[in-house]
């Protein structure tokens, strides 16, 4: 377990283990003794739990213990009943995840159909998306982005970890390109990204 101070590692282990939610690195820094090397502690712990029934995983700027994904078929009893997400909601979530920050009009433009009333609401209620700011465009529309809970739910270490994001980027599919003007609000698509 490298040269990490055992007490620091035990303490980090206990803090991470005690929490069901991902623990932000900042919070670990605050709670470990001042002299501890949190990065090294996390690396040592991650290595110690690799291949075990429980793994230490990075979720954005936070870390959490999670059961190993390969055990899923054997862990059925813990399975919580979850509402199935509609195809429209899942697609909307994917667009927000890959294209963030993104406005409602931009999502509608990509999908070629208006968003039904509850779609964004339901994703927001699940805690997976959050308003991120406003686009510098007429009407200053709200932009949406994903949350740490989204990363946690889908077992992603970060947005770079989104499946196939490099391919989408390489294919220019995440660029703001002029699209056909059949639907309204298409003008917003051309607005510069970034808030």
């Amino acid at each position, binding site marked *: 377990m490298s040269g990490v101070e055992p007490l620091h590692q035990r303490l980090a282990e206990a*803090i991470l*283990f*005690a*929490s*069901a*939610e991902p623990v932000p690195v900042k919070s670990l820094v605050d709670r470990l003794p001042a002299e501890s090397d949190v990065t090294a502690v996390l690396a040592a712990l991650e290595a110690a739990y690799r291949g075990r029934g429980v793994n230490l995983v990075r979720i954005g700027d936070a870390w*959490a*213990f*999670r*059961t*190993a*994904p390969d055990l*899923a078929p054997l*862990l059925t009893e*813990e*399975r*919580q009943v*979850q509402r199935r*997400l509609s*195809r*429209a909601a*899942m*697609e909307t*979530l*994917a*667009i927000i*995840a*890959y294209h963030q920050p993104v406005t409602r009009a931009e999502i509608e*433009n*990509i*999908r*070629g*159909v*208006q968003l*039904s009333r509850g779609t964004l609401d339901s994703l927001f209620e699940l805690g997976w998306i959050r308003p991120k700011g406003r686009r510098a465009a007429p009407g200053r529309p709200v932009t949406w982005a994903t949350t740490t809970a989204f990363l*946690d*739910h*889908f*077992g*992603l270490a970060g947005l770079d970890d*989104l*499946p*196939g*994001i490099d391919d*989408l980027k390489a*294919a220019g*599919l995440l660029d703001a*390109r*002029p*699209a*056909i*003007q*059949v*639907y*309204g*609000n298409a003008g917003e698509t051309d607005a510069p990204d970034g808030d």
Partner: protein
Amino acid sequence: MSPASGLSRPEPTVAAGTFVVDVEGFEGPLDLLLTLARQQKVDLKQVSILELADQYLAFVAKARQASLDLAAEYLVMAAWLAFLKSRLLLPEPPSPEEPSAESMAEALAFQLERLESFRAAAARLAARPRLGREVFARGAPEAVETTTVSVVSAHLGDLLSAYAAHLCRREPRQLHIAPSELDTVAAALDRLERLLGSAPGWEELRTFLPPETAEGLRRGRLGARATLAATFTASLELARRGRLRLRQARPYGPIYLVPAPPVEGDTS
């Protein structure tokens, strides 16, 4: 341009004769176009937009034949595709304001490809091991105990003023209270007796006050009010002794006094 009626998007499944149009499975015209494009069994990049426009228009025509109430957005797309088709077939000299037919077709192809990519991305995302389904968090999280440490904030100033307050409260025991500067009834008696002799008849009580008292009363000074009160008390005392008589016409009215005729046997 977008259909204003976003409230209800009809998704009819209607059988008309032998031809069945099922729009229910489609999420809007772009989704329908994507499905039709896939039927061309070519890479989306090589898809023939012209052929696609024909297929879409044929679909919409059949749907209308079957008296299907298609959502407005399908019809808007049909109109746009008919326009695109005409532009592709009969190239006109490009006007500076309008995009060329080729760029319009390219934009449509891009949108179809993008939609398909996001579809795929959504499917891959949905297939990931999900928290609470395939992957689990700690089932019995242990609450971190929070201890409240109260930090007392006290400054030297607080300490000193506390001690000073204590000393002040202690001090009156050894403190000699300075003589009051207020007029006493005894002094008022002396003054009244002295002045009474020179009073020819009924005089207002106020005329027996020291000259500076009037100004003090006007200013509401405590000393002046005390002098007035002492003088009034002295007048009552002298009246009790039979040395003067008092008269007041009405409540709060001016008080008049007059020396009483000397009584036999009064020595004072």
